[in-house]
């Protein structure tokens, strides 16, 4: 009964999406403000119905209702409760339902928090949101219905892919979707602005919180996925330039560019049509990512058994959305009036350079990701584009970006004088040289490592210089500086935190890329292996039962100069239901480096053990966290507070009422 309620609720949501999509165009044509205002309750109702559907599916997973096909295929009664719960989106059908739910959350959020938007504009935004929702609701109902029944119901399910039974991965999809789908809001704002011909500083300010929110979620989601790959796949790596990783990385690059260009649009009324284009491209890349992952053209842990109809549907949807929005753009964008002009040496042009580099970097990732698919389609040749490609293209393009990162914030808007900027770079230059010298002196490594660390020092010193300048450090008494720091806009803090995060992240990636060491050895209890000054002693190896698996667990004592540093318990788990194995690496972190141990298979001579010494890898997660924190701080900036502009409007209720029919 409950799954049928879910199915029914989903159909009602579809009806609500139709109302929501029709309200704005019909209302505009009939000049009926009341009809346009209908989009709001429709968005809320759509959200309510999809929530009901999602709750019904969760119920089926939690109580292990194997008469539902999705549950029988992807769950098992012995699975821990947390994974029954999160298993709801650990399969194709459920994850698509989660996708439309998050879309509805965003729609409802625009309806509720968008009170300061002009009513007609809000109706258009909601209409575009509803059209996207419509596309995905039809997709779910027609090709991926999560509520299909199975008769007779099996006694037990086929279990969730054990790789996905992990806390890191349980919350990776919702965060990533929050980011992907958040870009749909920026997209809706862009399309609505093109329809209404309203792209100005106010528009940029409305879009910004949505972009920020989705950027934060995307950053956190990607970082979580990367962290999962690091400890669960057992290769000691954190990023593999896998097509599926790239699929989430491309929208992230676009969202990052959009965040920066919308600052120019907001503050200087410039780069407006470019900002709109970025909003369109960002969401288009999200859809492309969905297509790549969901259509089964790629093989990875992310691809669920694929049905060609699904791939074709998403591809057609992608073409309609991208084609339609770009056509609209080509038609309406030339009509946009250019705003404030600026010189090549200015804050604006440094942000433009940032955008250019991010966009071109995104293009290289795009080519590297799609090249094998294209070559397969036209030449029937199978190739793989691996990390070396991305390292010699994308990573190189990021060098000028990091150089700009210290310079840009020091430049004035409109036009900056070289004589004013250059002296402020002195600290950065000194820091970069000092770091390079220190790295080279301490044994160094390849020139890339020296350069990378120097760049991180350059960026970090640049951020600190800019901050010191804002609080007039050492020019006024320290107490006065502290008072100024407290009084700084949140956005200024946000930028410093996020950019420092980037510097930390760069340190982490350079460390991971250049100084990782590993040893692989067949070991018996009592054997010791030495790596990077640590002794790893295998004490025992044995079987330990888990809730729905049996773990082959090693006990490895780590000693430094004869003193115990850590006891590591790496596991190799066997899940009998699917007869698969997973690796659980054991990691001891000192925050400066990770000691990372993996157990392999047993062989006659002993057990295969692989040990990694991963210097600076923890900095990657710290850096990513700082970037997210920066985004969150920026969200709390005063100019994004919902209440502030509304209160002003209360003084003119007559105008508002006349305009909206509220």
């Amino acid at each position, binding site marked *: 009964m409950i799954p049928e309620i879910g199915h029914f609720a989903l159909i009602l949501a579809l009806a609500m999406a139709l109302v929501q999509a029709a309200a704005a165009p019909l209302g505009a044509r009939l000049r009926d403000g009341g009809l346009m205002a209908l989009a709001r309750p429709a968005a809320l109702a759509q959200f309510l119905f999809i929530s009901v559907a999602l709750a019904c599916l969760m119920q089926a997973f939690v109580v292990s209702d194997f008469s539902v096909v999705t549950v029988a295929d992807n769950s098992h009664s012995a699975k821990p409760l947390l994974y029954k719960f999160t298993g709801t989106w650990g399969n194709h059908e459920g994850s698509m339902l989660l996708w439309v739910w998050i879309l509805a959350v965003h729609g409802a959020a625009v309806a509720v928090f968008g009170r300061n938007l002009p009513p007609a504009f809000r109706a258009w935004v909601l209409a575009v949101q509803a059209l996207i929702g419509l596309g995905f609701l039809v997709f779910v109902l027609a090709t991926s219905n999560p509520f299909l029944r199975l008769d007779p119901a099996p006694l037990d399910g086929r279990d969730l892919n054990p790789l996905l039974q992990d806390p890191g991965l349980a919350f990776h999809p919702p965060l990533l979707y929050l980011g992907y789908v958040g870009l749909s809001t920026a997209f809706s704002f862009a399309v609505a602005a093109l329809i209404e011909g309203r792209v100005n500083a106010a528009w940029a300010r409305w879009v910004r919180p949505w972009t920020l929110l989705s950027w934060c979620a995307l950053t956190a989601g990607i970082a979580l996925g990367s962290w999962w790959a690091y400890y669960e796949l057992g290769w000691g790596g954190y990023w593999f330039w896998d097509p599926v990783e790239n699929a989430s990385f491309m929208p992230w690059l676009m969202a990052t560019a959009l965040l920066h260009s919308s600052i120019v649009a907001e503050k200087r009324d410039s780069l407006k049509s470019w900002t709109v284009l970025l909003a369109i491209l960002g969401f288009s890349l999200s859809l492309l990512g969905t297509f790549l992952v969901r259509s089964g053209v790629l093989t990875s842990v992310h691809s669920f058994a694929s049905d060609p109809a699904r791939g074709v549907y998403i591809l057609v949807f992608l073409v309609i959305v991208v084609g339609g929005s770009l056509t609209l753009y080509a038609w309406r964008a030339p009509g946009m009036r250019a705003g404030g002009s600026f010189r*090549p040496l200015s804050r604006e042009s440094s942000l433009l350079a940032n955008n250019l580099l991010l966009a*071109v970097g995104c293009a290289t990732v795009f080519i590297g990701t799609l090249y094998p698919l294209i070559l397969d389609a036209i030449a029937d040749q199978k190739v793989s584009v691996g990390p070396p490609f991305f390292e010699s293209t994308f990573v190189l393009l990021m060098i000028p970006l990091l150089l700009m990162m210290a310079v840009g914030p020091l430049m004035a808007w409109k036009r900056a004088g070289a004589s004013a900027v250059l002296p402020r770079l002195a600290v950065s230059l000194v820091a970069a040289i000092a770091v390079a010298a220190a790295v080279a002196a301490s044994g160094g490594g390849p020139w890339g490592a020296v350069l990378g660390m120097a760049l991180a020092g350059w960026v970090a010193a640049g951020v600190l210089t800019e901050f010191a300048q804002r609080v007039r450090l050492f020019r006024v008494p320290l107490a006065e500086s502290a008072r100024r720091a407290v009084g700084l806009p949140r956005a200024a803090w946000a930028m410093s935190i996020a950019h420092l995060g980037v510097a930390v992240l760069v340190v982490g990636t350079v460390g991971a890329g250049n100084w990782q060491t590993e040893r692989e050895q067949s070991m018996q209890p009592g054997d010791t292996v030495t790596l990077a000054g640590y002794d790893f002693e295998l004490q025992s190896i044995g079987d330990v039962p888990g809730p729905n698996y049996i773990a082959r667990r090693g006990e490895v004592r780590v000693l430094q100069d004869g003193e115990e540093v850590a006891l590591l318990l790496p596991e190799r788990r066997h899940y009998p239901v699917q007869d698969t194995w997973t690796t659980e690496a054991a990691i001891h972190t000192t925050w400066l480096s990770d000691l990372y141990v993996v157990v392999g298979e047993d062989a006659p001579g002993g057990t295969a053990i692989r040990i990694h010494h991963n210097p600076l890898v923890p900095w990657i997660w710290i850096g990513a966290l700082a970037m997210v924190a920066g985004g969150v701080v920026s969200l709390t900036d005063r100019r994004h507070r919902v209440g502030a502009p509304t209160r002003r409007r209360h003084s003119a209720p007559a105008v508002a009422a006349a305009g909206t029919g509220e």
Partner: protein
Amino acid sequence: MKRKHWRLVFLGGGLGALGLAAGLVLTALDDTLVFFHDPSTLKERQFSPEQRLRVGGLVEENSVVRGGDGLTVRFIITDLAHTVPVTYRGILPDLFREGQGVVAEGYLKGSVFQADEVLAKHDENYMPREVADALKKSGNWKGEGTE
């Protein structure tokens, strides 16, 4: 300089960046592409031992042999028409098993393929896409959902 001139400066910068990226991409594609082949092609054509390759197929049943050091593994990859012996040193991925699809990356030294990376990524049908296509080519594809 007028606004028009500044615009040219920006345009030049943009085109410069694009050109640079295009150059990087083209050279990188030239240097880093790794071609995928099935065992039949490895038999038919000559490959330089310096050329990095990917080979994929099924791991032949009962072909996995472990060396005395406990780390070296030998196995045979087959597309059910031809086979190629593979050696690899290290821990095999969790999803590696006999009778199922696998992709190995490395170099063809003589008749033996020396892999330095073994990939067993696949969907729930236990079949990497390249391997499925290779089996279709050799006429031994058993259809979707083979487990």
